[in-house]
């Protein structure tokens, strides 16, 4: 698929999608969004890239294997659960840092639920990208 339009658009839309996904991830606790939605959105930026530049090339240009994303996502989620135990509670009990205010963002709440959501985010990205790449490169190799 060699569409100049698509290739050019991807150059701008891709980063935009990624940024949007991070915003969705962060605001998820209070507004529609969260790790799952954010992860899907981030993954779609990679898939868009693949459509523009080809699957195999995209796979080769990825800095890290998506499986690693999944692994670290799971590890983060687990860690957020363990923090609950470490800080004297039970597994998965939420622990919060003191809230503070930042201009533009308003009140910032950092805690293990956010950490957990980041874990979900990474896992979903890993899953979607891995499956899409597997399917896409598979088909490319069949065609050739």
């Amino acid at each position, binding site marked *: 698929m060699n569409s100049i339009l698509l290739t050019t658009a991807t150059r701008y839309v891709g980063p935009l999608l990624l940024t949007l996904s991070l915003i969705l991830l962060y605001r998820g606790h209070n507004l529609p969004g969260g*790790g799952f939605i954010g992860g899907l959105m981030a993954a779609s930026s990679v898939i868009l890239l693949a459509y523009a530049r080809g699957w195999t090339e995209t796979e080769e240009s990825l800095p890290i294997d998506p499986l690693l994303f999944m692994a670290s996502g*799971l590890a983060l989620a687990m860690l957020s659960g363990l923090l609950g135990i470490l800080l004297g509670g039970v597994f998965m009990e939420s622990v919060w840092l003191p809230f503070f205010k930042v201009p533009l963002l308003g009140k910032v709440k950092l805690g293990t639920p956010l950490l957990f959501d980041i874990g979900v985010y990474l896992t979903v990205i890993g899953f979607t990208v891995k499956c899409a790449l597997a399917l896409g490169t598979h088909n490319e190799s069949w065609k050739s």
Partner: protein
Amino acid sequence: MILLLALTVLLLASLFAFGANRLPERLKPFVLPLPAAIAFVLLAVAGTSFIKDGAIIELTVPWVPYLNLDFVLRLGGVGLLMGLLITGIGALILLYASSYMHGNPMANRLYAFLYSFMFAMTGLVLADHLLLLFIFWELTSITSYLLIGFKCESESTRKNALQALLITGLGGMALLAGFILLNVASGTWLLSELVASAGSVQSHALYPAIFVLVLLGAFTKSAQFPFHFWLPNAMSAPTPVSAYLHSATMVKAGIYLLAVMLPVLGDTAAWQITLCSFGGITLLIAGVSGLQQTDLKRILAATTLAVLGLLVLLIGIGTTKSILAAMLFLLGHALYKATLFMVAGSVDHETGTRDVNALGGLAKLMPWTAGAALLAACSKMGLPPFFGFIGKEYVYKASTVSGFGELITAVLVVGNALIFALAVKVAFLPFWRPSQCELPKKPHEAPIAMILGPVLLSVLGVIIGFYPALSEPLISAAQDASLGYVYDAHIKLWHGVNLALVLSVVTVSLGVLLVVLDKKIVSFLTAMKLPSMETVYYGLFDATLKLAAWQTRMLQSGLLRNYLLIIILATVLLVASQLWQFGGIEVPVVEDFTNIQVWVISITMIIAVFAALLSKTRLTALISMGVVGYGVAFLFAQYSAPDLAITQILVETLTVALFAWVVLRLPEISVKSRSKHRYFDAIVAISCGLLITVLVLKSMALDISPSISTTLVQWSLVKAHGANVVNVILVDFRALDTFGEITVLAIAAIGVWSLLYRGIRHKKEGDGS
């Protein structure tokens, strides 16, 4: 505490035995039997205070409280007798094995397995909790599987080991079920408390089921007809294993169980008839089939079977005398059978053959072994003054006064005569008749470690034959435990001339006759071609494999269409049947039809569905399905579920995009399936859709428990600092669920990737060729 100590010693020994190969050869005969000997002494100490002072030696450690499973050990009379045999003979077996396995690089495994078996077996006879007993019971099955299959390079050995495991394992399952029902009927898990509730158990409606299940467990373990065939096959184990498992221990586990269950389940007509008939049949079948064997070990296995049958029969009679006889026979048999097995092993070791027809004239070459064999054989033949004689006398005393006296006595006389004949064949002829032919190895006396055990055990048989009072406390305690009440027994060697003695004389003469006619009987039996239970076993075995293959073919057809059909049909049927039970398909009437937007979206979706169904190209179908998906998303949005709506849109977009990529590379749609199939598919699809619709409507009407959603909404901001309750539920309230879900996601990704990746590799290999 002392019981736990004994078990711990054995358990540790089984672990450390793996390092046995590092021991210097000289030390092995001293070190290896040591843990068993320690356990023996510990049990003996416990036993002394148990018998002398009537002390109750028990230990309760809570284990899994919510399963009512406690670690309860308690020393009982039968358990003490068995425990002493297990550890005592075990020590001698290890001494024997240390020399028998000389130079075998896998020897350490054998020692370790022997010790883990010993641990399991000792635990079994000490356990007071039914479930604990069951656990040890299964452990003995597993460890004996490892032991029987020790020479795992031979296919027949593996087959035989598996056979033993399957039969005893299945019996174990039955036993577990029996124990659970027993608990239901009696309200207790403890053996020691069961005796008190014997009456209520026997009058309980579950009694027949308990009876059958427990007997199944005992019969499979003790190789009773019709499960008897595994025992001779288990002879493919190394000889020390056979000597241990199939003389004193594993096969006696069933006898032990029957003995301790007698006061609970026994004393009914069903008990007497079942045990007597199955025991009697086993005794006769085993004796007769033993005559046909020529392998020393197989003959011994046949006599073991015969004795097991005899013991079951005696426990079946269930009188004071018969139990006394059973306990005497149990002890006597353990002593001489372990001896004979070890002797058979020595003969095999030194001559290179176990064929009874080839052996002869070994008495001069292996005097010590021959002596031990002679003593053990005399005990086995039931000649005075050996311990076996006492056992047999008491057997006849018990049988002549029991219900079916004549019949049982006749069976016993024939059975004992058969055992007599087999004893002559296996322990007399190889040593005392002139040598028959050239042997594979030049025979000479076995090393000292392999002589000590047989000699010790056989001499012990003579000593307690002369002084039966020595065994009295032990036997009496075991008898009391099995009867459920105290009975003062006096064991004597000589009772004067009486009916039992006459029967003994008849037995011996019949036995001599059998030995003389041996050749004729064997050729007659061979000509008869008796049906074997083993064919039934292999028939079932093959049928199971065929069934498995058939259902795998059916379910795992490799066709995507079939998989989908099975999954959807199964879901529809299962859910529908549940739905039916919860009040049928009546659903509340939805009254709100005023929302115009919902109308528009719904109609669009319906049109899209038909477009997908009728489209001629894949891409159109795909896009139509996409429209349905977006429609769902709009509906979510309409009913204020923005998170769901966004997710749905993203998922739909990604799916359509990915599918489009794949679909573009597929050939054009062509109708390949028959219309019959298509109609069927349509019916399945419609019923699935209907079911989901009903389910959704139904879920609105059902109010099974108070809803928690309002509480969650209230807590969301206050307790979890989040205004988006959907997200708070996902990452905080129900984070564990989410964690499980993302784990599944990761596993699914690995699955997809490996499936597709394999496809690529095949393709590339295909290209290369």
